[in-house]
């Protein structure tokens, strides 16, 4: 058996990590200021207008967006790995990233050709299209699944992967029609980014992600049962169809909102749950909340790296998560730290 840490210690460690990373994220940047710096300036009677603007309008919303996106992706990763009974399942396994990106690309091309306004009643069309296409992806999965007597994990998985491949062709198609000078903007979207200004994206993420995450957390006990044995779970009174529906819809909704706001940021939903599982064990009552906190901290950290790596401008966060996450995942594989999976 793997070493396990106690529930209290795991939650405490994850919370401490969050606090430290968020504080660092607020304090570190091109301008040397943070909450403490601001307080000192204010007591010295200096003007804090500029500093406050940087802190509250730039760094805080950005930090919150990164935290919410990372937390949501990590939690959905946990849930989908149990629901699809597959260690490689991620929030994007069901084709949500592909579909969302296809939506964003479509909107970008339509806007460029003047067929679509940039925003309708304040809603940016790129985000709206990303979300609608992701929703269409989920709807198609349900249509396929409902044609079967029982949607087995394998059917869900294959449907999602297929839709993802189709969406990628759609992306190629929009790229083909796009004007070459627009391709840079479009591809930048695919790399993900939390370089937001102001609180509108934060509000969208908070409304979209927080309630759904809380609801998803209540499914922990049922996911334990489902991951152990679908039939025993049914025998113990878990309504399998309802569980699959609930987790699929909540997970897809959370992912759809995140993809539409910050783009398809990869690897968070894969690396974080597996790493956390090595410490907490596979019980979802502990694994899910600790993954949620750790995922938020992880993406804040990646955003910090994206801002601080000394190159021109900043590196898109999606590249950072994959560059950190990919090798780390390979290390886990080599070291046999998939101890909590029957692989």
């Amino acid at each position, binding site marked *: *058996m*793997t070493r396990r840490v106690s*529930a209290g210690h795991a939650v405490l460690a994850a919370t401490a990590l969050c606090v430290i990373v968020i504080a660092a994220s607020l304090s570190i940047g091109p301008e040397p200021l943070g909450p403490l710096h601001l307080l000192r300036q204010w007591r010295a009677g200096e003007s804090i207008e500029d500093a406050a603007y940087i802190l509250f309008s730039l760094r805080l919303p950005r930090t919150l967006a990164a935290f919410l996106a990372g937390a949501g992706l990590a939690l959905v990763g946990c849930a989908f790995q*149990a629901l699809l*009974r*597959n*260690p490689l399942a991620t929030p994007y396994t069901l084709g949500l990233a592909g579909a969302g990106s296809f939506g964003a690309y479509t909107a970008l091309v339509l806007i460029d050709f003047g067929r679509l306004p940039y925003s309708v009643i304040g809603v940016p069309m790129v985000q709206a299209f990303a979300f609608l296409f992701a929703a269409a992806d989920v709807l198609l999965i349900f249509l396929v699944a409902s044609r079967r*007597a029982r949607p087995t994990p394998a059917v869900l998985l294959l449907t999602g992967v297929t839709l993802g491949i189709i969406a990628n062709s759609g992306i190629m198609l929009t790229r083909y029609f796009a004007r070459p000078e627009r391709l840079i903007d479009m591809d930048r979207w695919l790399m993900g980014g939390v370089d937001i200004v102001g609180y509108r994206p934060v509000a969208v993420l908070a409304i979209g992600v927080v309630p759904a995450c809380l609801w998803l957390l*209540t499914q922990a*006990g*049922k996911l*334990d*049962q489902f*991951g*152990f*044995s679908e*039939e*025993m*779970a*049914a*025998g*113990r*009174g*878990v*309504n399998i169809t309802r569980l699959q529906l609930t987790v699929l819809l909540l997970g897809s909704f959370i992912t759809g909102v995140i993809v539409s706001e910050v783009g398809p940021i990869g690897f968070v939903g894969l690396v974080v749950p597996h790493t956390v599982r090595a410490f907490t*064990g*596979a*019980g979802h*009552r502990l694994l899910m909340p600790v993954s949620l906190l750790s995922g938020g901290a992880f993406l804040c950290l990646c955003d910090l790296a994206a801002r601080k790596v000394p190159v021109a401008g900043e590196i898109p966060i999606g590249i950072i998560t994959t560059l950190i996450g990919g090798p780390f995942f390979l290390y886990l594989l080599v070291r046999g730290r998939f*101890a*909590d*999976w*029957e692989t």
Partner: protein
Amino acid sequence: MNRCLAAESVAFAYEPGAPVLRDVAATVRGGAVAGIVGPNGSGKSTLLRLLCGLLEPGSGRVTLDGRPLASFRPRERARSLAFLPQGVQPVFLLSAFEVVCLGRYPHVGALAGPSSHDLEVARRCMRDTATDDIRHRSFMELSGGERQRVLLASILAQEPELLLLDEPTAALDIHHETEVFTLLARLAGDGYGVGVVTHDLNLAARFCDTMVLLSREHAVAACGAPEAVLREETLSAAYGARIRVGAHPFTGTPLVYAEPPEGAP
């Protein structure tokens, strides 16, 4: 506690026109082991799932103490009867103790984890199945016999009064099959009602109090005491093969033997 789970003239088909069970009756009573036997594809596992309430009969009804099983809420049902399917393949690595704790699900709230009482029940069930000393070992590293005993402990942790098991000895050697059936018989002695699907007619003859024999035609070929069910003509017709029945040299219970097909070397 003398519970009675009964299927009354149930019929079932997964697809219209291809019945898996026709007009079948079966009873599982507290204090007795009821064996469900029959050839491959005769509907044994389906009958067990109907008795568990995991499938709804197309016609007929399944009742628990006279009350329709379908009227129970799922978790309420799970506190009365527990189901052990075949071929449990967990995707997560769990210790034997964690596996047994999963059995507390029908008693634990959606948000709360297991209480100290739940953990105590789990430990007691492990002692009852002689698995307490392997509780820290990883479930999938256990031998087939140990794994089966841990799974038994995990359904006992549901604190049910009726146990329904689908071929619990399928992959076990002769020693471990006997061990599992001995445990089932002892549990029946403690008052549990046990319904068990098995292919091993000789073990069933030795340990079951009653038997239901399903035929290739998906109907009941015989039911009652093992001696009444395990007869040459009845078995030969149900299996569509030449089956011989003698007496076990040591226990005197029926000993069943299938002849090779006629003309075989």
